[in-house]
C-alpha cells in the first residue's frame, strides 16, 4: 500500500508531471506565470481543488456506477468541480479573508483548468481506490505547483534575454517550457520497487 502510494506520488510530481509530460493545465501554466508569487498562489489553489475534487468525484463515480450511468461521468465531474470552486471561493471570502485576497482572483480560473478534470478522469481510468485517488489528486497538484513555480522563475529572467522580436511573449515562453520539459525527461524511468 505504502509503496503504491509512494510510486503514485513520485509519478505525479516528477516522472509524469502534469504539465511537462501530460500537457494538462497548460492554459494557467502559461497565463499565470509571469511572477513567482502569483505562480505559487495559483499552484496552491490548484493543489487544493485537485485533492478535493478527486475525493468528491470518487464518491460520485461509485454512485454513477451503481446506477449504471457511467456515461454521465464527464457532465457530473465538471459540475462538481465548478460548484466546488464556487464553494471554496465563498468559504474563503467569509472565513479566511487574508487567504482569499491572495488566492481569490485565481479561483474562478481553476474550473477551466484541464489538470483538475484530467486528474479526475485519470483516477477513473486507472481505477484507483479512494486513498489512491486523493493521493494522486494532491501530488498531481504538487507537480503542477513545482512546474509553474520553476517556470515562473525562468520567465522572470527572460526579460533580460535577447531574442528575435517575433518570439516576444508566448513563443519564447513556450520554448523555455520546452527546455524544462526536456529536463524533466531525465526523471523518466525512476521507480520505487
Amino acid at each position: 500500500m505504502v509503496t503504491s502510494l509512494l510510486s503514485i506520488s513520485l509519478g505525479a510530481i516528477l516522472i509524469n508531471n502534469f504539465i511537462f509530460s501530460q500537457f494538462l493545465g497548460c492554459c494557467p501554466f502559461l497565463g499565470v506565470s509571469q511572477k513567482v508569487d502569483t505562480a505559487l498562489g495559483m499552484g496552491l489553489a490548484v493543489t487544493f481543488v485537485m485533492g478535493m475534487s478527486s475525493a468528491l468525484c470518487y464518491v460520485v463515480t461509485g454512485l454513477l456506477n451503481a446506477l449504471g450511468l457511467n456515461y454521465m461521468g464527464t457532465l457530473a465531474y465538471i459540475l462538481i468541480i465548478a460548484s466546488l470552486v464556487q464553494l471554496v471561493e465563498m468559504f474563503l471570502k467569509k472565513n479566511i479573508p487574508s487567504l482569499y485576497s491572495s488566492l481569490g482572483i485565481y479561483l474562478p480560473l481553476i474550473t477551466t483548468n484541464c489538470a483538475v478534470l484530467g486528474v479526475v478522469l485519470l483516477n477513473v481510468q486507472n481505477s484507483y481506490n479512494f486513498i489512491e485517488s486523493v493521493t494522486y489528486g494532491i501530488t498531481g497538484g504538487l507537480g503542477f505547483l513545482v512546474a509553474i513555480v520553476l517556470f515562473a522563475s525562468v520567465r522572470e529572467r527572460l526579460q533580460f534575454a535577447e531574442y528575435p522580436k517575433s518570439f516576444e511573449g508566448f513563443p519564447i515562453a513556450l520554448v523555455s517550457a520546452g527546455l524544462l520539459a526536456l529536463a524533466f525527461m531525465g526523471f523518466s524511468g525512476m521507480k520505487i520497487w
Partner: protein
Amino acid sequence: MNIKKQFKEGLITNNPVLVQLIGMCATMAITTSMFNGVGMGLSVLIILTCCNVVVSLLRKIIPGEIRLAIFVVVIAGFVTIVDLLLQAFVPALSDALGVFIPLIVVNCIIIGRAEAFCSKNGVAASFIDGIAQGLGYTLVLMAMCFIRELLGSGSIGGGLIDIANGFRLTLDGSGAGIQIFPSEYGIMYMILPFGGFMTLGALIALMQYVLRKSAEKKELKEAQEVNE
C-alpha cells in the same frame, strides 16, 4: 453577415490557437500523427458548431447570472455524445486521444466562443463562426502534426494515409503513412513533449511575424496616402 470576414478571422487574423492563444493543451499533447490531429480537430469543430448553435438559440432566455453554468452543461452534453459515438464507431481514434476527448469540455475555445460570440449573435452567424474557428483549430493541429511527424518519425499522414495497397485514406487509423526517410533517423524528441512546446512556440512566432509585417505594410501605405 459577412461570411468571408468570419472565415478570415477564424483561419488567420483571429485564429484560436495562434492568435487568441487558447486551447493549447490538446494542441501540444496529441499532435504526434496526422490521424490524431485531424480526428481531434474535426471533433472540436463538430462540438463547437453544435454548441454555438444551441447557445445562440438559447441566448434570449438564458439569464446572465447562470449563463456559464448553462454553457458548461450544454458543452459537456455535446462532448459526451461525441465521445460515445467515437467509442462506438471510430475506436482507434478514441484509443489514441484517450482522456483528451472528455477534456474538450474545458477547452477554452468552446466556452470562449460561447461567451464572446454566440451570446451576442444570431444562429446563422454563430453556425458559421463555429465552422470557421473549428477549421482554424484543425489547420493548426494539422500543421503541428505535419512538422512533428515528419521530423520525428520521418513520415507524412501517419494513420490516415495508406500506400501499401495503392494510395487510399484509412479512417480506422491503420495506414502507415508515407515514409519519407526511415524512422530510425528521425529526431525522436519532436514527438515527445519537448517537441510539442517547441513546434507551437515556433508557429506562434511565425504568426506574429506575419501579422506584424502586414500591419507595417498597411501603415506604410496609409502614411503614403496621407502624404499624397
